[in-house]
C-alpha cells in the first residue's frame, strides 16, 4: 500500500478509537506507530510528546502532523492530520443535527442537568492535576494566582476581558523577570 494512503487510514483508525483525550491517544499512537509500524522510534515519540506539551493545539494533531511529515513530508502531514480529525468530525456533525431536539425530551434534559455538574468538577480537577505536576517557584505560583483572580473577577463582574489578553500579560511578566535575572547575574560576574 502506498505510504500516503497507509498514513491516512492508520490515523483514521487512531481518530476513531481514542476516547478520553490527548494522553489516551498518545499510548495508542505509540503502540501503532512505534511498535507495530516502526514509523518513528521511541525516542522520537518522547520528543514529540515534549514538543506537543510546549505548543498550542490538540496533542493528537501535533502527533499526527509529526508522524505524517516524517513519513511523507507535507502531503503525509496533511493526510495524517486530516485522517485523525475526520472520524470525530463526522460523529459530532451528526450529533449537532439532533442534539437540541434531543434536549427537549424531559428525562434527557434532567440527565444533562446532572451532567453539567460533572463537567464543572472535571474542569476543576484538570486544573488541580496540572497544579500537582507544575514546578512551584514563586514566579509560576504568582502568575497562576493572579490569572485565577483576574479571570474570576472578569466572570463575576461580567466584564469582557479575553483569556488571551491575560495569557499575553503573563508571558510578558515571565519574560521581564527572566531578563531582570539575567541582567543581575551578569552584574554579579563583573
Amino acid at each position, binding site marked *: 500500500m502506498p505510504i500516503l494512503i497507509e498514513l491516512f487510514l492508520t490515523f483514521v483508525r487512531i481518530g476513531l478509537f481514542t476516547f478520553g483525550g490527548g494522553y489516551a491517544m498518545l499510548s495508542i499512537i505509540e503502540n501503532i506507530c512505534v511498535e507495530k509500524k516502526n514509523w518513528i522510534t521511541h525516542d522520537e515519540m518522547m520528543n514529540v510528546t515534549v514538543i506537543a506539551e510546549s505548543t498550542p493545539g490538540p496533542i493528537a494533531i501535533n502527533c499526527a502532523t509529526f508522524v505524517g511529515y516524517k513519513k511523507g513530508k507535507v502531503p503525509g502531514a496533511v493526510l495524517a492530520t486530516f485522517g485523525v480529525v475526520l472520524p470525530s468530525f463526522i460523529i459530532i456533525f451528526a450529533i449537532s443535527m439532533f442534539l437540541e431536539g434531543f434536549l427537549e425530551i424531559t428525562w434527557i434534559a434532567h440527565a444533562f442537568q446532572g451532567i453539567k455538574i460533572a463537567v464543572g468538577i472535571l474542569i476543576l480537577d484538570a*486544573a488541580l492535576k496540572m497544579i500537582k505536576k507544575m514546578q512551584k517557584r514563586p514566579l509560576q505560583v504568582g502568575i497562576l494566582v493572579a490569572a485565577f483572580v483576574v479571570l474570576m473577577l472578569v466572570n463575576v463582574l461580567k466584564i469582557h476581558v479575553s483569556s488571551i489578553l491575560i495569557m499575553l500579560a503573563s508571558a510578558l511578566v515571565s519574560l521581564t523577570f527572566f531578563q531582570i535575572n539575567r541582567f543581575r547575574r551578569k552584574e554579579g560576574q563583573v
Partner: protein
Amino acid sequence: MIYLDLLIGFLEVGLFSFGGAYAAIPLIRDVVLAHGWMDDEMISYMIAVSESTPGPLMVNLATYIGSNKGGLLGAVIATTAVVLPAFFIILIIMGLAKTLLKNPYAQAILTGLKSCVIGVILATGAYMILGNCGFMNENGIDITAILITIGLAIVYYGARKVRKNGISPIGLICIAAVVGVVVYGI
C-alpha cells in the same frame, strides 16, 4: 459574517490553547460568549458530549459550534481553523526551527503561558461550579445542585482512594446523568 467570525475565533483558540484539551475550554468559552453563540449551560453539555465521543475535545467543540452556527461549511471552517495553528507550528519546528523550543527566551515565555493557563482553567472550573449551584444568578442558591456537586465530588475523589485510576471522565458523566434523571425526575 458568521464564517469569518468562526474562522478568526477558532484560529485564536488553536493558537493559544497551550496545555492540552482543558486549556482550550476557557478560550472557546470566551469566543462563544462574546458572540452570543451559546450560554454556559450549552457549553457544559457540549463538553460532556465531546468527552463521550472519540477525538480531541477542542476539535469536537469546534465542529459542533461551527455546525450549529454555519451548517456543514461552518463546521468545516471552525474545525480547520482550530487545527491549522498546531499543524503549522509542528511543520515549522520540524523543518526550520528545530532548536526554537530550547531558546531561553521561548522557555521564559512558555513558563509564563503555562502557569497562566492553569490559573485560567481553575477559574473557569470554579466559576462553572458556582454558576451551577446558583451563586451567580438572581434565582438564588440551588440546594439540590450543591448536594449533587458534593456527592459527585466524593464519588470521583473517593474512587481514587479505592482504585488506582479512579473513575474515568466518561464514567463520572454517566453517573451524573443517572443522578440527574433520578433527582430531577422525581
